[in-house]
């Protein structure tokens, strides 16, 4: 579907840190039965601690405003979320499954954030672009889900 406008007027609530925190908490609780909380930005190094890889996924959105949401999490958290999401902790997940999981998490966070910030407007979201990273990414918000780090950054034009 085409967006209704080409303008990029910022929607103020989109820049609200608390609304992003709340979106992550809601997604974690409702779909993953997990507990999320904001933590200090200095914990960003934990995303790729001990050389373990992380998955970073970006979802672009367009509508009355446009921009992107980027979420980075260790592969270990993606696996834990997949187990929680599937409801079966005994399942094994492939790399493709974990990539899918990280992207879907970002998709849900972006949707929850946009809906809470501007429920009267329609936004089109792109499919998540997921890549592996092995160095600490730039983040604007650090959170923990079940004690594991999650980094978020976003851009609103």
């Amino acid at each position: 579907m085409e967006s209704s406008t080409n303008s990029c007027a910022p929607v103020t609530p989109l820049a609200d840190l608390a609304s992003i925190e709340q979106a992550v908490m809601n997604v974690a609780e409702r779909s993953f039965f997990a507990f999320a909380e904001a933590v200090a930005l200095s914990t960003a190094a934990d995303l790729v601690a001990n050389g373990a890889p992380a998955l970073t996924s970006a979802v672009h959105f367009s509508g009355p405003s446009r921009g992107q949401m980027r979420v980075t999490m260790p592969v270990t958290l993606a696996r834990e979320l997949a187990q929680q999401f599937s409801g079966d902790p005994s399942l094994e997940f492939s790399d493709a499954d974990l990539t899918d999981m990280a992207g879907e998490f970002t998709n849900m966070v972006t949707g929850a954030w946009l809906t809470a910030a501007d429920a009267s407007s329609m936004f089109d979201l792109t499919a998540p672009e997921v890549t592996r990273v092995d160095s600490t990414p730039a983040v604007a918000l650090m959170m923990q889900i079940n004690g594991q780090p999650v980094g978020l950054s976003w851009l609103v034009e």
Partner: protein
Amino acid sequence: MIPLHILVVDDSAMMRAVIKRALQQTDLDIGVVLEASHGQEALDILDHEPVDAVLTDINMPVMNGIELLRAIDARAPEHLLRIVVSTDGSSMRRDEAVTLGVSAYIEKPFQPEVVRGVFDEFLRARDAAR
């Protein structure tokens, strides 16, 4: 009771699996659960398979959920239950979905009980209409 054949349309395989699992937790007599990763795949399935209910995401590659619902609506299959499962919870999108024959709108993230509630309501309405 006649088993329901259900088509789940979402570009996330994990999400499709979770929706299927939620369906299995309902009291529905479920026949076949088919899967498609975008709207065009879903239309191809609908061309060849008997389907009683479609649960579709909105944001998908190739053909999105709104385009799929428009194509379904053009075929006017009155018997086909249409349900949206999407991260997009905006009132405008919900209103648009209603005009395309959507009976229920499930917002992600959701808990499995929500899917169950939607289908229980559908079964009650179907039984009452008999």
